[in-house]
């Protein structure tokens, strides 16, 4: 970096006109960042500024410098929350479909969440062998069986999910 010709001893005096030069010079001992000179005549405020750790990213206003509409839109993309109800359960759950890589991932998560076994999907028989059938309400308001459409199409069209139980599940491809 010889081009830059950095002079360490940059004798610069700054300050209000009329002030003693030597006063100003004392305040400029910070020209060498490596020498952490605590006895320098820097103002308290400056030191305090240097000492203060930055707040966590999310608490710093306006950082990173991304415009509002860009934040909202992308954040919206990163969550596709849908409600999941289970027949007989007192309250609903909410899951983020974007988090799952595909149907097996999703079904495993549902099994964990609701403490049940859903079984394996087949196009012909639905969720044969299981007391439960995962269903969803699509954009048109129709109740559909989870697994019939490609995953990408599913996550875009799924509005809410319902884990159906027992005999009611039979109507949706459940093999009688």
């Amino acid at each position, binding site marked *: *970096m010889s081009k830059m010709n950095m002079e360490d001893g940059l004798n610069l005096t*700054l300050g209000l006109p009329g002030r003693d030069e030597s006063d100003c010079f004392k305040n400029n001992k910070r020209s060498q960042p490596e020498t952490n000179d605590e006895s320098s005549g820097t103002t308290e405020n400056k030191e305090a500024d240097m000492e203060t750790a930055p707040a966590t*990213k999310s608490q710093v206003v306006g950082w*990173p410098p*991304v415009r509002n509409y860009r934040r909202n839109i992308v954040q919206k993309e990163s969550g596709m929350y849908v409600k999941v109800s289970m027949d007989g359960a007192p309250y609903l759950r909410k899951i983020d479909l974007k988090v799952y890589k595909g149907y097996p991932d999703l079904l495993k998560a549902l099994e964990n969440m609701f403490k049940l076994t859903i079984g394996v999907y087949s196009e012909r028989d639905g969720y044969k062998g299981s007391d439960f059938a995962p269903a969803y309400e699509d954009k048109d308001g129709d109740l559909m069986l989870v697994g019939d459409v490609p995953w990408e199409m599913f996550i875009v069209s799924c509005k809410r999910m319902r884990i159906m139980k027992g005999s009611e599940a039979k109507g949706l491809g459940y093999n009688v």
Partner: protein
Amino acid sequence: MGYSFPEEVLEHVFSFISLHTDRNAVSLVCKSWYEIERWCRRRIFIGNCYAVSPGIVIRRFPEVRSVELKGKPHFADFNLVPDGWGGYFYPWICEMARAYPWLEEIRLKRMVITDESLELISKSFKNFKVLVLSSCEGFSIDGLAAIAANCRNLRELDLRESEVEDLSGHWLSHFPDSCTSLQSLNMSCLLSEVSFSALVRLIARSPNLKTLRLNRAVPLEKLSTLLHRAPQLVELGTGAYSAEIRQDLLSNLTEAFAKCKELEGLSGFWDVVPFYLPAFYSVCSRLTSLNLSYATIQSPDVTKIITQCPNLQRLSVLDYIEDTGLDALSLSCKELRELRVFPSDPFVADANVALTEQGLVSVSEGCSKLQSVLYFCRQMSNSALTTIAKNRPNLTCFRLCILEPRAPDYQTLEPLDHGFGAIVDHCKQLQRLSLSGLLTDRVFEYIGNRAKKLEMLSIAFAGDSDLGLHFVLSGCESLRKLEIRDCPFGDKALLANVSKLETMRSLWMSSCSVSLGACKWLSQKMPRLNVEVIDEQGDLDSRPDSCHVEKLYVYRTVAGPRLDMPSFVRTMNQNPAYRR
């Protein structure tokens, strides 16, 4: 006077001079040139609406046809300027409505404009043609309806990135059937639905429509209908790019895009379903501009697109493109002038994507025409910056945002002073620079010594002392705009460079160490500066002079202190005896 050219000749000569900087220079030659020039100036650019008053402008330039105004400082984009700060268009329109009956064009940026003002525009100018509201706010759909209804010869309506209150949503139908003059419509910022049938009818009767940017609410299923009506489009912004997977929809869309032989620019792409991306592959070879910065598609899909765009000059993407995608870009797009890479998940500390400094290095190697860069990333090194600088000495705009404040060179853990130093050393035409990462006063010495063409500098979480600021203010000859946040810069550098501030448009400093007393002193010393202190904690009068101000905005003006300030903004007064 008797020896000079007749006025008509000079006027004719001046008519070839359009750049406002050139016109300003012309007006300084002599008094008669000043007079002739001011009568024939048709376009006015005012970079800071508070630098001059409407009255002064109108008195000097009586025959203006086009006005461009900017209001809030740039950092308002990042919520650093509190609501209510100012930037009101109303005083301007009131006087212009009277003085410029033949006004044709209004372009505003970061200003507050009300429905009342919009209505006034629509009714005051018989030949009104162009309205561009960039990052503006304060108006609703009702104001747009007034523009649509009353501007008979409207050519361009562009609401880019503005915040519009959509209450009713139906304003397109206010365009009369007789309105066929529309060439450009940008409503991408509108949140609510518009009447689709009104939109189709409007497009169908606008044979000169070249630019159409839809809002997210226009569904993909309806896009082909619009494209069929406007195959002459040069720039298209889609709405949401998602629909149920249907082969027939894909075929329709593909066919519609194929008919658009003039298409050069694409944007929009919210909610992309990758299945529908191939629909526009046929236009890729012609594309010069592509904005995928809302498209949450992964690197393979992005790469597939850009490798088909050999004529691409401007690209905006999310960091989903990753280093591999940028490698592909560097190989495929040799005409690239401008690259913007936005963060998909800016608030997460760990990288969610494989995008590093390497991607930018690749592009700097492969794209020899690259001039303008905006790059968000999580790591950077001095060696990468130096490589980029050596590769691309033709850079004019370099904005780097390392997401973590004060992040050092990730390899050596040193500050990034040398890297940015290399940038300003090699890129001698650099006009705009944004810094980030760990930086000491050294980088500012480099900048002050080398960046002679630099006009705009943005600094955040950098520097050690007033020396840093002093280097910039005393060294950067072309500096017009300086914006600083969270830096240990205080009174000394400011007060040692007061006359510099009058050569600049503006200086913004927030969360620094500038004292109230220094602000007062500066204001007294420089009567042609407005020294605005923005402090929402209230009670500025009772604070001691030694206390630090939250935010400081200093700008040159011939209009004196403004009169429309909210309570949390004070202009320091020149007269020491007069305390507000």
